[in-house]
C-alpha cells in the first residue's frame, strides 16, 4: 500500500501543473457562463492530452490506470479551473454495450469533445421507476421512429447526440422491452424546452420532446431489449465519485471557504465539510485502486453515491454558514448541493439498493 505518487504519476502531475499554470483564470467555473463554455474547456483539455486518461487509445484515450483521473481532478481543483467534464458513464455505457462499429463512430467525438452528448433516460412519469418509461421507438423500414417526452436531460440544449432509452416491445415484461439508441439531436421531430434550476441556472438541464424523430436502426446500442442492462451500466458509473471527478471539487470549495474565514474561528459546518471532503478523497483513491484488480461495479456504487452526496451537502451547508444568502456564488453552491441527492438515482433509492442487494434485507 502506498498513497503517494509513483515516479510516473509524479511526472504526469508536474506536466499537468505546468500546463494548468498557463490557463488559470481563463475559464468561468460556475453559473450559466460555465455551462456555455464547458465544451471549449473539454476540447482544450483533450487537445493537450489530459482527457480520457483511462479510456482506450483507439478511441482517443490514453489507457492509463484509473488513478490518473484522480491526479487530474486534484490538479484541476488546485489550479482553480473548471472540473473534468463528467461523461465517463456515457463512455462506459456505449463502450460496454455498443458494437465495435458504433464505438469507432461515436466514442472518439465524445471523448475529444467535438461532439456533445446528453442522456435521455428520465421521463415525467418515470424517474425513480425508470423501467416504467413510455417513450417508444417503432421500426419503420431501416429506421426507428421515436415518440415521447424526456425530462431532466442534462446539457440537452447543446447536445449533438442523445443516448436514448425507448420501449421497442410493449408485449414483454417491462424491463425487457427497452432498447438504447444514439439519436441525433439535430433533426425535426425534436423540441427542446429549457428548465430553470432553483438556483436560477438555465443551462443545466431541459425537457426534450420527441415527435416523429428518426434514428437509423444501426444506431441501436446492443441488441433489442438490451436497454435496461445499458441503463444499469450507466447509472452504476454515474454513482461513482471517481467517474464524476467531484471529490476534488469539494476539497477546493472547502479551501476557498477557509480562506474567507481567515482571522475568525471557522464555523463548525466548515470544519465538518473538511472532514467529509477528505473522507471522499480517500474513498475515491481506495475505490480506484480496487479497480486495478478488475473489480466489477455492482450495488457498491450506491454506497459511493451516498458518501458523495453527504460530502457535497456538507460542503453546501458550509458555504451557507460562511457566505449566507448574500454571496450568490456560495448560495448557488448550497442550492446545487441539494440536487445531488436526486440526480443519478435519489438517496432513498440508493438506500433501497444497499439494503436489498448488499445487506440482503427484504426483496
Amino acid at each position: 500500500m502506498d498513497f503517494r505518487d509513483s515516479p510516473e504519476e509524479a511526472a504526469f502531475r508536474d506536466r499537468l501543473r505546468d500546463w494548468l499554470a498557463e490557463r488559470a483564470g481563463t475559464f468561468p467555473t460556475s453559473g450559466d457562463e460555465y455551462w456555455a463554455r464547458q465544451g471549449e474547456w473539454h476540447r482544450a483539455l483533450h487537445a493537450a492530452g489530459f482527457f480520457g486518461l483511462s479510456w482506450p487509445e483507439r478511441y482517443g484515450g490514453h489507457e492509463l490506470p484509473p488513478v490518473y483521473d484522480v491526479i487530474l481532478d486534484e490538479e484541476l481543483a488546485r489550479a482553480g479551473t473548471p472540473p473534468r467534464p463528467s461523461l465517463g458513464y456515457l463512455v462506459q455505457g456505449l463502450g460496454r454495450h455498443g458494437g465495435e462499429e458504433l464505438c469507432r463512430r461515436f466514442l472518439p467525438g465524445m471523448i475529444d469533445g467535438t461532439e456533445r452528448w446528453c442522456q435521455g433516460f428520465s421521463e415525467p412519469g418515470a424517474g425513480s421507476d425508470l423501467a416504467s418509461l413510455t417513450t417508444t421507438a417503432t421500426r419503420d423500414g431501416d429506421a426507428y421512429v421515436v415518440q415521447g417526452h424526456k425530462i431532466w436531460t442534462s446539457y440537452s440544449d447543446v447536445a449533438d447526440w442523445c443516448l436514448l432509452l425507448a420501449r421497442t416491445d410493449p408485449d414483454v415484461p417491462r424491463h425487457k422491452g427497452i432498447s438504447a439508441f444514439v439519436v441525433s439531436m439535430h433533426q425535426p421531430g425534436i423540441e427542446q424546452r429549457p428548465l430553470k434550476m432553483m438556483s436560477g441556472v438555465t443551462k443545466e438541464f431541459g425537457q426534450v420532446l420527441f415527435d416523429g424523430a428518426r434514428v437509423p436502426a444501426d444506431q441501436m446500442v446492443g441488441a433489442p431489449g438490451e436497454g435496461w442492462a445499458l441503463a444499469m451500466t450507466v447509472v452504476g458509473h454515474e454513482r461513482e465519485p471517481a467517474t464524476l471527478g467531484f471529490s476534488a471539487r469539494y476539497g477546493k470549495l472547502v479551501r476557498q471557504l477557509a480562506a474567507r474565514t481567515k482571522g475568525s474561528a471557522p464555523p463548525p459546518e466548515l470544519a465538518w465539510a473538511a472532514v467529509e471532503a477528505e473522507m471522499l478523497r480517500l474513498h475515491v483513491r481506495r475505490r480506484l485502486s480496487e479497480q486495478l484488480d478488475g473489480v466489477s461495479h455492482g450495488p457498491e456504487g450506491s454506497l459511493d453515491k451516498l458518501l458523495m452526496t453527504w460530502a457535497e451537502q456538507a460542503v453546501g451547508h458550509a458555504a451557507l454558514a460562511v457566505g449566507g444568502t448574500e454571496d450568490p456564488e456560495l448560495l448557488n453552491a448550497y442550492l446545487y448541493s441539494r440536487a445531488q441527492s436526486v440526480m443519478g438515482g435519489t438517496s432513498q433509492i440508493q438506500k433501497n439498493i444497499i439494503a436489498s442487494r448488499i445487506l440482503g434485507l427484504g426483496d
Partner: protein
Amino acid sequence: MDVRLTAEQRQLRDAAARLASDLGPGSVLDLDDRHRIARLEKAVEATGWRNLRSDGASGVEVALVVEEFGRGLVDVPFLGPVLADDLRRQVGSTVPAATIAVGSSARDAHGMRHALTLDGDRVLSTEVGPRAPGADLTRHNAALRDASEPIGTLPPELAERWRVLALVATCADLVGTARGAHTLARDHAKIREQYGRTIGSYQAVAHLLAEGLALIEGSVSVLRHAAWAVDELTPAEALRAARIAKLYCARAARTVCETAVQVHGGIGNTWECLAHVHLRRALVSTELFPVRLEEIDCGLS
C-alpha cells in the same frame, strides 16, 4: 400554567391563515401576478395588523400573524412594518410606511418609504432607495438613502425588548414557512406515483415527512414560549428564550424545506416548484437577527 392560545388568539390566527391562503402565491408564477399582489396589499393594509403593537397586541399575537403569513408565503411587507410600528409607538413618531433596516439595506421593503433601525438605544429613520438584490423571492430588500435621521431614544430595557420581539418575529416566520413547505411536500407525496404506488407509501419518504412534522411541533413549542416571554419575562430571560427558539426553529425549518425539495425529486430542484421559495425565505429569516450556538447559555456559566 396554561399555555394554550385564547379564543381571541385562535380567531386572529385563523383570520391570518385565511387571508394568506386566499391571496398568497399558490405557485411560482403567481409571484409575478401584480394584480394579486395589489389585492393582497389592500387586504393586509385593511386588517390593520401592521400596527398590532400600537393596538396593544402581545408578542404572541404578532407571532401568530407572522407565522401564518410565512406559511402562505405572503409577499407584501409584514414582518418589517410590524417591527417598525413597535419602534415608532415607543418613541411617539409618526413616520409613515415604515419597515426596518439591517446593516446597509431595508428589509421587507416593497412599497415602503422609510426604514427604522435601533442603534444602541437610538431609533434612526432612513429613506428607502431602489430595490436591492436578495435571495428571498417574497420579501424585497432595498438600498438606503444616505442621511439617517434620529427620531427618538428608548430606555435600555425597552430597546432590549424590541430586539427580542424582532428575534421572535423571525422565529415565527421560520415556523410558518416550514409548515408551508411541509404541507406542499405531504400533498405531493400523496399523489405522485412511482412503481405503481404513491411515494408517500414508501417508508423512506413517509419517515422524512414524519420527522418534519416532529421538528415543526418542537419549533412551535419554543416559539410560543419565546413569544410570550417578549412581554412577560425580564429582557434577559426573554432574550435567552428567543435565542433558543431561533436556533431550534432555524435548523428545523432548513431541514423541513430540504426535505420538501427531496420529496419532490427532480421537480423540487427547479425554479417552478415552490419548495425553494420556502427554503429561500427560511434562509433569509435565519440570517435576519442571527444567533450563534456559542451564544446559548447552557446553564453552566
